[in-house]
């Protein structure tokens, strides 16, 4: 049995996000109006050999803390399912 976990890693609020900025510019140049803030992050989808969602979540959170996110500049969110 496996459980799928999704870890979303985003630049922390206030941390400069050059990529998001460039995407925002590009969307405006493409003619999309009314685009406010754009933030670009990463998402990592994992298959975990677990059966207990709570445990899977804890494991994915530890992975995020130790490797997937750099908590100096990034925040992360874990979803199970």
């Amino acid at each position, binding site marked *: 049995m496996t459980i799928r976990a999704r870890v979303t890693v985003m*630049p922390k609020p*206030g*941390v*400069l*996000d*050059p990529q998001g*900025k*460039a995407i925002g*510019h590009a969307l405006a140049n493409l003619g999309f109006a009314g685009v406010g803030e754009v933030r670009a992050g990463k998402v990592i989808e994992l298959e975990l050999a677990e059966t207990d969602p709570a445990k899977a979540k804890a494991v994915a959170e530890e992975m995020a803390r130790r490797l997937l996110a*750099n908590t*100096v*500049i990034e925040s992360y969110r874990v979803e199970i399912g």
Partner: protein
Amino acid sequence: MTTAAPQPLPAGRARQLAAEFGLTPEEYDRVLAILGRAPSLTELGVFSVMWSEHCSYKSSKVWLRELPTRAPWVIQGPGENAGVIAIGDGLAAVFKMESHNHPSFIEPYQGAATGVGGILRDVFTMGARPVANLNALRFGDPKLPLTRRILDGVVRGIGGYGNCVGVPTVGGEVNFHPAYNGNPLVNAMTVGIARADRIFTARATGVGNPVVYVGSRTGRDGIHGATMASAEFSADAEEKRPTVQIGDPFTEKLLIEACLELMATDAIVAIQDMGAAGLTSSSVEMAGKGGMGIELDLDAVPQREEGMSAYEMMLSESQERMLMILKPGREAEAEAIFRKWELDFAVIGRLTDTGRIVIRHKGVVEADIPLAPLESEAPLYRRPAAETPKPPPLDPASVPDPVGVAEALRRLVGSPDLCSRRWIWDQYDSTVGGQTVRRPGAADAAIVKIEGLRRALALTTDCTPRYCAADPEEGGKQAVAEAWRNITATGATPLAITDNMNFGNPEKPEIMGQFAGCIRGMAAACRALDFPVVSGNVSLYNETVGRAILPTPAIGGVGVIEDAARAVGLALVPGCELVLVGET
């Protein structure tokens, strides 16, 4: 607009904050005497960064004066954003080295990347187009996972930034030693080329001239980075992490193009990049150097975040920003260029003749400080220096030979300090720009041609910290001599150096002794070789829990070879003879 004096902090609170910001009690008393009252929060922030080791060189200045800085080919010695030397045909080489040690420990990729961004700005600020980057790196024990992580991040960061702005990374050096376990060194060097008669400086002149902000917006990045760079790491450094600065190399590239385009006109009076302590150091230094006063209106500063205070804006270390003084009436012309490159542009103040910096925000005067004590009269210390005891001479006969010559050679060649650096330089674009005649690994110094000419620059970085630890004076000499030899070995004529003095806590006499000894040795070698120092950087407090790094005066050398085709490489060609020169 109000002219009321800034709101002083309550006396006790001010003293406590001053200590937190790294001012000594005596230094804080000096602040009180200068202002005749307690400082406001913004004023205290300005004093603490301007008087930090990083900005004021208060522990190192008296020693640095011993270095020779003059030669007929030197156009600009230390004191500006970068050094400048004449390289013939009316051209000049503009170069400097700078450290980003502490940020690279906290966040290796961004720390190293923003280090490259900062040194690039120092060079193009002077009107030069950057043509080459180099670096000097020291890491801890290569067996430690932490070392590997830092090495990987630093190399990616240097490459990521340099590759993206399109400046080739052509050389460098790397050492490993456990003394750097908790305190790696990341020293980045940029070399640019400018017309010798078109060098820009930071000297602001002209009462009423507009103060102009260009580049990226200001956020709450790295507030108090400059004071952090001047404080040794304690075990809880992980906790004290300030917001890390993030580099945006694409914006830097736009900034280079926009600045060089504006520099081709005669609209600029003075220009300075916003490095450590961004808006504070750039405005204070520009106005101070020109003997002017300056007024800033922070409401006009382009801001990335809402609700930033004057204190935060003055201390922000957001990257990719510059401050300029324009000639009167040239604002529209300049703005058009920066808008074309999609960069922020704002007039944020004027030059005055008051000799003071006055900072307004939301109609309130947040700071009003005389400039002279902030800049030229910052505290200077001749700290006690204890000579490093000379090691007794070693009798070669007393050294056992446990492994035999062949095995010793095998181990040496395989050791982290001597093995191939190819893994590193393969990640750096060393050929972008199409002028790299000798890439990393191809010669003792990198050879970068000057576009359109046969003449080329020879570039190298060198230092052997082991030698400096054993005998600072001889080590200092050796580092300069090695740079000189590496340039000479390509057939080029060595002309001048930049340096990056990386040491431990200067309040310890034995560290100050290492510093003084290295300087003495460097000065002697520079004098003997006619190889002056034209720029440099000092990074102190490189310690973790009281353990200092090895004394590391990294040297960046620049030379010129008339015909790039005659540059000598390392590769042996079939049939060549081997000749050994000098005593063994």
